[in-house]
């Protein structure tokens, strides 16, 4: 669709709320002043007061609703279509979870309510901790971190505290070159130096490189398993042995947990610390970039250092009494205010209650089945010639294709393929990650998709490659049917305009 064909109502769709409304319009009617009026100047001296009003919008309620409903329609979302974004686990978000999270007993519970009058919330957290402990095979859980990267920070700070407690100062943290970007960024924030590990020909950790770099200055190895290539590292036991052999801890990035729930447990693999992404494996809706939650589970030796407060259960023989324990002398301290993103805990707990242990295993089995089927289906459709699997033969819950041959043979890049997929009504896979794969395309279908959807996606990829063989420009200039077409990101970064100009 060209610009001239844009319907008139859509043409000014990018006008912001600040460009709408008129002086005097309003949506809010203030409750009446029911206490004696006092001059504001008496209550708040002028030098503390705002001298000019904040230029917020002046809009009526119908204008607000129409504005935001209007711009919402310029989003693609999981409820509308397939979203195989690798490493993000875009599985269905059950609406039951929104309903239970909105119950006033959860939604209007103040975080400083006395524990004896928040027993339902603390029991929910206790039960969720137990479930995450069972799923990970690690005995102790803190729900506090706000997202995966925050859980990573917690984990690396725990590692620091653990070594310090033993009177050791270590400076290095190992991360594979396939790691999520949050891993090395976290290492720096926690005051350690990043040392990269090479990947072997099979897509796993290069054991010789690990042996060469693992010494007593290494505090921790951060690993994702299955890794970002969608491969389970078969040498995990040996890796754990090497890492523990030099006294370091082993950290599990739980971004890919959706592959192994009920099938293999990080604790049994030898990991000391795991973070969970409740917004991935456990259905917290992603909200366009949050909220999430990043609880951690740890082994016995890391437990003294967990963040405060910790949920505890007292008098468990009679009626259990739940409480928050702040008296943890070796704790790393607090990572945020209050107890964590409780609203996310409610949703994740509801999900675990719905599925049970068998259902969680079924979810992971189906996620892996769907990924392998999609991979096979792409081969059947003749796609593998241009988009070969980067490593291995089978995959876990996701797989990484290389667009290198496609780029050379058809003159379209992975980015072009991704943009053309938009015209076919699909969210593209993750692109250009992991970094060591040329023109990477990382596909994670999740367990909640039908076989028909997977088939349609494979057909779309095949169709794009076919049309590119005839005319690569079609993909290079895509998309055509989206609310806007390719955007000038270079100009945006060069001269940043990051807020509306206010009148």
């Amino acid at each position, binding site marked *: 669709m060209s610009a001239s064909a844009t319907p008139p109502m859509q043409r000014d769709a990018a006008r912001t709320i600040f460009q709408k409304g008129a002086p005097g319009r309003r949506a*809010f009617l203030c409750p009446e002043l029911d206490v004696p009026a006092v001059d504001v100047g008496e209550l708040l001296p002028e030098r503390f007061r705002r001298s000019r009003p904040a230029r917020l919008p002046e809009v009526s309620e119908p204008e607000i609703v129409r504005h935001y409903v209007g711009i919402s329609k*310029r989003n693609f979302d999981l409820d*509308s279509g397939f979203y195989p974004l690798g490493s993000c686990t875009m599985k269905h978000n059950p609406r039951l979870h929104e309903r239970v999270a909105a119950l006033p007993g959860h939604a209007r519970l103040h975080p400083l309510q006395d524990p004896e009058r928040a027993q339902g919330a603390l029991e929910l957290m206790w039960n969720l901790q137990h479930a995450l402990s069972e799923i990970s095979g690690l005995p102790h859980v803190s729900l506090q971190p706000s997202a995966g990267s925050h859980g990573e920070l917690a984990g690396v700070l725990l590692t620091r505290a653990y070594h310090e407690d033993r009177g050791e100062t270590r400076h290095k943290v190992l991360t594979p070159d396939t790691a999520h*970007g949050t891993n090395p960024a976290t290492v720096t924030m926690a005051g350690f130096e990043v040392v990269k590990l090479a990947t072997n020909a099979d897509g796993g950790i290069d054991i010789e490189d690990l042996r060469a770099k693992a010494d007593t200055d290494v505090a921790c190895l951060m690993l994702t398993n299955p890794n970002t290539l969608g491969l389970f590292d078969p040498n995990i036991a040996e890796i754990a042995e090497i890492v523990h052999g030099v006294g370091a801890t082993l950290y599990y990035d739980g971004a890919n947990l959706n592959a192994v729930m009920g099938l293999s447990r990080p604790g049994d693999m030898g990991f000391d610390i795991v973070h969970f992404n409740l917004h991935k494996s456990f259905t917290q809706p992603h909200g366009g970039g*949050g909220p999430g939650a990043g609880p951690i589970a740890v082994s016995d030796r890391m437990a003294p250092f967990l963040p405060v407060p910790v949920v505890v259960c007292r008098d468990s023989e009679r009626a259990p009494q739940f409480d928050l324990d702040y008296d943890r002398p070796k704790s790393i301290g607090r990572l945020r205010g209050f107890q964590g993103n409780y609203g996310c805990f409610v949703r994740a707990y509801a999900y675990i209650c719905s599925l049970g242990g*068998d259902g969680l295993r079924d979810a992971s089995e189906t996620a892996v089945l769907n990924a392998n089927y999609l991979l096979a289906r792409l081969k059947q459709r003749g796609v593998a010639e241009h988009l070969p699997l980067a490593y291995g033969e*089978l995959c876990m819950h996701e797989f990484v294709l290389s667009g290198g041959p496609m780029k050379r043979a058809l003159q379209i890049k992975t980015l072009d393929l991704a943009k053309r997929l938009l015209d076919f009504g699909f969210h593209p896979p993750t692109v250009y990650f992991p970094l060591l794969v040329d023109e990477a395309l990382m596909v994670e279908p999740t367990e909640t998709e039908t076989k028909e959807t997977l088939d349609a996606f494979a057909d779309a990829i095949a169709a794009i490659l076919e049309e590119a063989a005839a005319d690569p420009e079609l993909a290079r200039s895509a998309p055509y049917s989206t609310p806007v077409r390719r955007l000038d990101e270079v100009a945006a970064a060069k001269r940043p305009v990051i*807020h509306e100009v206010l009148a």
Partner: protein
Amino acid sequence: LSRYTAITPEDLDAMLAAIGVGSVQEIFDRQIPAPVRLGGPLQLPDGLPEQDVFEHLRALASRNTSAEDELSFLGAGMYDHYVPALIDMLTERSEFLTPYTPYQPEISQGTLQVMFEYQTAIAELTGLAVSNASVYEGPSAVAAAGYLATLHNGRRRFVVSAGLHPHSIQTLRTNAHGYDAEVVEVPLRDSVTDMDAWSDAIDGDTSAAFFAQPNFYGAVEDAAALSAAAKAAADPVVVAQVDPITLGVLAPPGDCGVDVAVGEGQPLGNRLDFGGPSFGLFAAREEYLRRMPGRIAGETVDVDGRRGFVLTLQTREQHIRREKATSNICTAQALNALAGVVYLAWLGRRGIVELGELLLARTHYAREQLGALPGVEKLHEQPVIREFALRLDADVAAVRRACAARGVNPGVDVQALSGRDEDRGVLLVAITERRTRADIDRLVEVLGSAVASERRATVAV
């Protein structure tokens, strides 16, 4: 077949055949070594039908005493403000609720425009040039400001006013320990930051100096004087933890010489949710833009010249810069920030002033009425906006229990939160617009009799 998966036995046969394996088990057996495979089922309860899960979660909710169930004056960081219905409706829309971070801008203009509008609102409210699209929440935003300061000036020492929320100080300490930065606390005098101690504490190693406005005890600080004194002492990055809902009436931090404003966004249209999720606001002067943490949306045009928005300045971020990133943040609080900007549009230019003035008046009324009770005195005489501290001549925990028995939660036991000896007997009372004069009068009556009977009990002992 679970209710969230859709693979029938017929599908399964066709899929296995396509893959070239005999069973799903074989896919795992060929990839996961036997010693690290889980031998048996997870020891978790069986799955339940939707309505059973609903009943279970409802039963748990019913065992909590929420702000719906009692007359609550709890605050200290999160507040029971009214959330307009249109926020529920908009945040539950699939288009906002279910997409990922907007990596594909052509199909994410809704989310990106919301981020851009949010940044506009926060920059305007704080009087600072730039805002990111939100961070996790308040106290971790304080810690993030500290990290930004160390990147900016390479110094390794933080000076914090004791008027900062205890959770903020604790969170800053946790983070600072990682990169070996020291945290030095400056005491209060008359419940506001002791200006002499503040100036003395800030030296050439001081990376950032932090204060809260209003502070943890409800007192309005002299923000301009604190900023000027800090700059004069050794030019650290001046960070203010602000409460956005007060900025309709309070001077914006940008007008007071503050470099970075952070804060808890929950009062802006977000639920209490027992502490989260909410969002953290993070705004700064222009010179800090390229060191900001978190996502930032920027304006640009598409190939047809149409206005559009993209994630910008991504070379700050972990997925591009990895170990050189300015922060590790990835998933943040987009949906909560949406609630925040919708709330600000709903309040509007005049509404935020009217609401602020209503809070001022009701809070003043409550403070005077309560402060006049026998055995109760105002902790300080500083100006307050929506929260204030009282000192009770009685055991706070016992008084709170007595009030709770009559359906009133009179506020926060400050010493339980801060751990400070000098906070013994201090009660922190929050007055939102949901608390009417009649509610306040009831608090006066219930707290008054609870304090009186507790004092009698103490005398009798």
